[in-house]
């Protein structure tokens, strides 16, 4: 079946440099630096990446960071909590707009 998302494309991520090697190098060097141990540990960054992957619903990123989080030493409970953080923020983002609706209703109704 034809599909826009192909699992094998994940391994080809580096090929994107083909059209512009300079930008490609710059991006991947930056990307690598971002995930190094710093003020946050590599494991904490990996959990943030996992949560963001769910927020932006990127299947490539979910695959990559589910594996990376395990390698970095996280367990299922920690990873599930990270996904719930993404879920809470996404749900909260909808709900907080409800205040706009509420204000409108208050301004409009008797």
């Amino acid at each position: 079946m034809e599909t826009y998302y192909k699992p094998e494309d994940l391994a080809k991520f580096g090929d994107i440099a083909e059209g512009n090697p300079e930008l490609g190098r710059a991006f991947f060097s930056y990307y690598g630096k971002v995930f190094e141990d710093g003020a946050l540990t590599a494991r904490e960054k990996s959990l943030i990446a996992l949560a963001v992957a769910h927020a932006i619903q990127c299947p490539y990123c979910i695959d990559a960071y589910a594996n990376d989080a395990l390698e970095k030493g996280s367990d299922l409970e920690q990873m599930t909590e990270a996904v719930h953080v993404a879920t809470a923020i996404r749900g909260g983002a909808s709900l907080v707009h409800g205040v706009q609706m509420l204000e409108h209703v208050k301004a409009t109704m008797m």
Partner: protein
Amino acid sequence: MISLKVLSEELMPTTPGPNATTTSLRYRREPLAHPSVQLGALDALTLKGGREGAGRFELDLKASNWPTLTPATLDIFQINLGKLCNMTCRHCHVDSGPDRVRENMDRETVDACLRAIELSGAHTVDLTGGAPELNPNFEYLVEACVAQGKHVIDRCNLTILRVRRYRHLPKWMAERGVEVVCSLPHYRKLNTDAQRGKGTYVKSIEALRQLNAAGYGQGDPNRQLTLVSNPVGAFLPGNQATLEAEWKSALEANHGVTFDRLLALTNMPISRYLEWLLQKGLLETYMERLVNAFNPATIAGLMCRNTISVSWDGRLFDCDFNQQLELEVQVPGAARPHVKDFNLDLLMQRQIVTHRHCYGCTAGAGSSCGGQTA
């Protein structure tokens, strides 16, 4: 043969696996219990990748400027005291368990080891198993090695220290400067129990507290407490230094437990871990991951280059993995060396025996009994 009396009720209560009970391959009479079947399963895979693209370890060695893999100075004399264990971990490369009462080192072979240790010049004697403490000659052997001035390592599963008969060991080993290297795959319960059996985590933390109380894990070079972490699944271990920092802060914060260093080891695709990979349909994926992560920088520091591994019946191997696969050392001539005829010169002329499982030690940052090698 170790008397069944040693296997008291207290030794048995670790119920392995959260979902299923793990028993040894040998106990279940699985064909995979045989090394030839394990090697056959690895050979049967078509692997692309590695430096030469064929997943053939000896070719990738050659392409990395190691035409032959030869020994360096012998530093470590490793003795596998036997296959008997109070636990039955899912990933065990020895296929150990409470049923393995037959394959355990007798006093005569222990004495032959002691003579060989003197001849070997090795500075460290590394005791493993099974649970090495279960061998009735354990304390005798440790005492004699300490008397020879050797650094002694006990590869401990932790839970054995909760068994009444062995509760004196933390203090006993501390008095003799024995380094305790113990398995704790994760600093949280979920993964630890999944790999090592339900209830293991709680007992392991209790055992670590005993070791701390005996002076272990507080920076004293004579009371070194080392943790070993293996991935709980089909992935590679993370950076050893990073994991050590995480493990240290988490164990101290959650349990007030301290330790000195952490070794991050890769799971070897043999024995029960191989069975698990086959059952999950993950063998090819895992082997590809190992082969693609082949790192020539790990080769010089591989344990097979500075270690001799002795089996319960006194045979000699390049490492404990080759021992479990029955791949004996190859010395010039047709001899099959035994520890009672220990000949260092002959052993130094050997060529290290390799096979596909060796990719487990050369992947990423490398993996050996002493941790990452690159």
